[in-house]
Every structure is written in structure tokens, then in C-alpha cells.
């Protein structure tokens, strides 16, 4: 052995990743210290054994097919943690809590050839637990960010843009499959007066409570959003005008009866509600909004604190 | 008597590689074609002893040429296929269609010479 080759063994043992050598019959030929330590088995005891008996958790069929591609084609093959979290059940040594007790791994399968024929398969196992963890955190943060782009900061219900996007979708769906769709739009009565009497903070408090109250009265598929400063809207899929009207009635009553506590005051509110149902004449979702709006206006001009149904 | 040769390949470089590999006695009467249709045209108008034929060509590919010649029984020319498509099924197909031999690209001089010898051309 030349001087350099003598160091190879030492170097592979110092590497912070696993090196595993298999023959074409899936028998373990050699592995390095990393694996000896993490798998907690002695090479001398398991050398020559089938990899599947040393690591029974390996998906055998998949593994065999993967190795076959390496042997036959003489090209490397890869397995990333993003597709399979790990192949070999090795404990990870990270001080952080991750979703799994096992090390996340990136594995590389390489052919070791002699005279252009693959004699051995070298499997490189990289510990990517950190990467996996931070990537998941990043993904979650980005999802939260995306969500915050859809939510109205004050009331924590959908903002107008997202609500309208939802309406566009629901509208298309109802139109396409000929399903029922109704819309409720409502406006806080005398909101300007309320702000004058209790200040903007009072007004905000009213909006927050109102949103919570209404949310508690809706079903899972209903889409509630803040349409304007004191204007709100609800999309009611699979609901006809009767169902929507019934809900509108309950909303009007509940909001009117609610006591909103602000500082030492008890604020009473009411809303004017417009109700409309999708019909054949509506070609765009805007026309549905229009109908509900007209009905809302009618409710306002008829004395407020009531709901009105679009003709 | 000098044998006349036709080289049919859409690649200029591939044609040159064949020319370069031809023994001297076969280099004096060489015609070139860039696709199957051109090759058939040449065969109609000129007597060709040996054709080196590529498979993957536009207009009419090598298999098309072989099929055409087989159906029409119109030529006595010896056809040697030289191709990048080296799958065994393709090799047997061209032999069935009447080619004398199949050679892998890039063509090697000794392989070419050996094939020509085996089929009585040298």
C-alpha cells in the first residue's frame, strides 16, 4: 500500500458522514466509523451479512431496484430527505427537537467498477437533520406569511382581496356545476357616530367583537371577510335565498342584542343586511355583489337594523 | 474494377468519418446523400455497389430506405448500417430488412474493414 492509501482508512473514519460498501449481492463489505457508532454494531460481527438483516427497516424492493440501476447503468443514484426522510434508522445527535427521532439523510449510491463492470456499490449517507429542520421552519414561516397576506389585521378574518378571490372561485364553481350560492353583505349602522362617541379604539373594539360573534354563527364552508371599513360580507356556498335569509335574520338579532364592553361602557350596535342569491342572469361575481349591495341599501333606507332580500 | 460507394447520413461529420475509414481502393467513386430520399434518388440513377446507411435522418430514415428497397427489390447494392441507435432490436431489424451488417458509431476503421472483407469486398 502506498503512503497515501494507508491514510484512506483513517480519513474515512474521521468523516462526519456514513460510508457503506455493498457487493452486488447486497452483502456488507465495509463501513466506516460514523456508521459503527451510529448503528451501534461492530463491523467485525456483521461483515458479510445481508444489508437487509442489518437494517431491516430498509424498503427492500425499492432498495434492490435502486441498486440495480446503479449496477446496470453504471451511474450514481440519489435519495434526498425531501422524498424519503431517511433510509437507515440512525438516531440523530442534534440538541434540537425535530419531528423525528431518526437522522434525516441524503444518500448517494455510487458504482465502484473494475474493468467497466460494477463490483461494489458505495453508499454515502449524509446527516441533513439540521437542513430538514430549518427547511421545515422556513416553510412554516412562509405559510404564516402567506396567510397574513390574506387576513385583515384588526378583525383577523379574511381581507377584501382574499375574500374576493374566494368569491371568484366559489362563483365559478357554482356556475359550472349549477350549485346554489348566496351572498350576505352587511354594514354597521351609524358607525361614524360610534367612532365620535367612543373614539377609534371603541370603533375598533366593536369591529373585533362583531367579527368574532358572526364567525361563531357560521358553518365551516362559509367565507367571511371584511369588505370595507365597517362593511362585511359572507359567501354562503350550497345555500339558497331561504337559507341565507334565515341566517341574515339570526345575525341581525344577535348583533343587535350583543353588549360590547369598551372601557367602562356598554356599546350597542346594529347592522343593515343585504341578501342575494346567484341566478342565471349573473355572469360575473360582481353582479352578485351588486344585487346584495342594492338590497343592503334598501335595508338602510328602510330604517336600518334589518335585512333585505334582493328581488 | 472499382466499387462505387454511397454514404448516406445527415451529419457532415459522420460522412467524413466514414470516408476517412474507407480503404484506398474504395475511395475513388464515392457519392454522398444527406437523407433517405436523396439516397433512393441516387440508387435509381446510378449503379452503387456498397451503401453505408445511417438510421436517424430526417425526411426518410434508414429503416424507411431499407423497407423501400426490400419491397421494390430494386437494388443489388450491399447495405451496411452505421448508426448511433445500437439497441439489439434495431440491429436485428435492419438485418432482417436486408442490411449486410450493423456497425456502431463512431465507425472504427478495423471494424469497417473486417465487415467489408467478410462480405467479399476486399
Amino acid at each position, binding site marked *: 500500500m502506498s503512503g497515501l492509501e494507508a491514510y484512506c482508512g483513517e480519513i474515512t473514519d474521521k468523516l462526519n458522514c456514513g460510508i457503506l460498501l455493498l457487493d452486488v449481492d447486497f452483502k456488507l463489505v465495509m463501513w466506516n466509523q460514523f456508521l459503527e457508532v451510529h448503528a451501534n454494531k461492530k463491523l467485525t460481527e456483521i461483515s458479510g451479512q445481508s444489508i437487509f438483516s442489518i437494517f431491516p427497516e430498509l*424498503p427492500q*424492493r*425499492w432498495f434492490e*431496484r435502486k441498486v*440495480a*440501476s446503479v449496477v*446496470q*447503468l*453504471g*451511474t*450514481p*443514484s*440519489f435519495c*434526498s430527505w*425531501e*422524498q*424519503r426522510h431517511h433510509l437507515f434508522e440512525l438516531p440523530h445527535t442534534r440538541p434540537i427537537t425535530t419531528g423525528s427521532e431518526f437522522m434525516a439523510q*441524503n444518500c*448517494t449510491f455510487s458504482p465502484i467498477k473494475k474493468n467497466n463492470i460494477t463490483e461494489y456499490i458505495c453508499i454515502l449517507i449524509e446527516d441533513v437533520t439540521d437542513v430538514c429542520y430549518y427547511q421545515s421552519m422556513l416553510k412554516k414561516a412562509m405559510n404564516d406569511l402567506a396567510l397574513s397576506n390574506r387576513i385583515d389585521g384588526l378583525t383577523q378574518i379574511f381581507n377584501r382581496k382574499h375574500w374576493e378571490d374566494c368569491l371568484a372561485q366559489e362563483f365559478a364553481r357554482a356556475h359550472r356545476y349549477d350549485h346554489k350560492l348566496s351572498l350576505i353583505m352587511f354594514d354597521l349602522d351609524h358607525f361614524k357616530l360610534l367612532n365620535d362617541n367612543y373614539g377609534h379604539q371603541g370603533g375598533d373594539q366593536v369591529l373585533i367583537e362583531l367579527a368574532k360573534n358572526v364567525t361563531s354563527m357560521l358553518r365551516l364552508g362559509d367565507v367571511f371577510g371584511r369588505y370595507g371599513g365597517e362593511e362585511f360580507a359572507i359567501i354562503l356556498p350550497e345555500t339558497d335565498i331561504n337559507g341565507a335569509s334565515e341566517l341574515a335574520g339570526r345575525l341581525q338579532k344577535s348583533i343587535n342584542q350583543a353588549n360590547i364592553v369598551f372601557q367602562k361602557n356598554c356599546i350597542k350596535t346594529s347592522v343593515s343586511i343585504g341578501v342575494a342569491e346567484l341566478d342565471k342572469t349573473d355572469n360575473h361575481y360582481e353582479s352578485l355583489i351588486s344585487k346584495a349591495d342594492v338590497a343592503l341599501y334598501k335595508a338602510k333606507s328602510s330604517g336600518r337594523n334589518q335585512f333585505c332580500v334582493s328581488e | 474494377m472499382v466499387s462505387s460507394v454511397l454514404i448516406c447520413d*445527415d*451529419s*457532415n*461529420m*459522420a460522412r*467524413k*468519418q466514414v470516408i*476517412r475509414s474507407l480503404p484506398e481502393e474504395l475511395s475513388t467513386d464515392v457519392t454522398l446523400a444527406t437523407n433517405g430520399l436523396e439516397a433512393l434518388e441516387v440508387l435509381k440513377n446510378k449503379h452503387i455497389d456498397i451503401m453505408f446507411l445511417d438510421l*436517424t*435522418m*430526417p425526411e426518410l430514415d434508414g429503416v424507411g430506405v431499407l423497407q423501400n428497397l426490400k419491397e421494390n427489390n430494386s437494388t443489388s447494392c450491399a447495405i451496411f448500417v452505421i*448508426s*448511433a*441507435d*445500437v*439497441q439489439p*432490436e434495431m440491429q436485428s431489424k435492419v438485418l432482417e430488412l436486408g442490411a449486410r451488417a450493423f456497425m456502431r*458509431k*463512431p465507425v472504427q476503421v478495423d471494424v469497417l474493414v473486417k465487415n467489408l472483407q467478410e462480405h467479399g469486398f476486399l
Partner: protein
Amino acid sequence: MPFSLDEDQLDCLQELINVAMGQASDQLARYLDTFVFLKVPNIELVNAQEFSKSLTSNNQSTAVVSQGFFGYEGIRGEALLVYQHKDSNHIADLLGYDPDELSDEEQLIDISSILTTTFLNVFASQIENQLSYNAPKLLTSEQDSMSEYLDHLSFSWDIALKVNITYQVTDYSFNCDMILLIPESAIIDIKTVIDRILEAL
């Protein structure tokens, strides 16, 4: 374009690619235990910016598997296999797995890696080189990450060599574009080898 190839060089490159394609398909056919029908691979050199834009602006959902390769004498680049979404189904069958043995993503990544590495290995041997590969990565056009990814490759690539490959495998036919993104240094080296080959003719 400073890196344009003349007619002879382009013809030579096309031929090198044909031969690589032929051998790679043969290997693939043996591995898949089927016959692979080969069409003439169409190659073109595309402008880097245009290409970037075309990838991300396509309205159809596209899947891209990207794999870096590197060899001696500065030969390196990124190979992209671009699939239209409809083609990326039923690949598990093709690869010899049960469909529930591996996810759609894994199937696409696996076959892409096989196509890329077998082709590049043969191509490399023809230009007297030997290549190593990075792990393949799947990008989809739905993610904004695709153009960012291309911008942040560890080299600035100057040429996109587009090789359109159509694979027809018995009952399946799928189409993908293989795009080789190559930096200046690598193109110069490839040109040198091409010139050497042409000179020997």
C-alpha cells in the same frame, strides 16, 4: 454571440449528441427491459435570458428536474429536464415499481437522473472527459423558486444548449427537453475538443 459555433462545429456537436443519445437509450432500454424508440434529437443554442423567461412564463404547469455535473478541465454545468405536466404521470410503471412504492416526485426525479447521467456519461467519454453529479432537484413552475434557482447557480452560465428528446417506450410516449446550461469556460473547452476531432478527419 461570442460563444457561437460555426456550421462544422455545430454539426460535430450534433453528431456527438446523437451518438451519446443512441448509447444512452440502449442502456435505458436494457434497464427498462423494453425498446426505446429514438427520434433525431433536435439541438439549438438558446439565449440565457430568453430561456429563463420561457421556463417561468409558461402557463402550463411544468416540472423541471435539475442536476449539476462537473468534470475535468472546467467542464461543468447544470442539466435541466423539462416536462410538461401531462407527461410526468405513470412513470413508476415505466421504472418497474408499483405506483405506491414511490411518490410522483420520486419517480420523476429517478427517471430524470437516469436519463441525464447515462447521456452525459457517454457524451463525456466522447469529449475525453469524466463527470460527477450532484443530487437531482425537483422544481415546479408553481414555485417562484425556479428563476431564483437559475439565477443563483454557482456559476454564471452563458449558453443554454437545448436538446429536445422524445422517448417513445412501447406503450408510453413521453417528451422532455433536456437543457444543458454551460458556462463560458466549459464551452471553450468543448470547442477545443470539437476542433481536435474535426482536425483529425
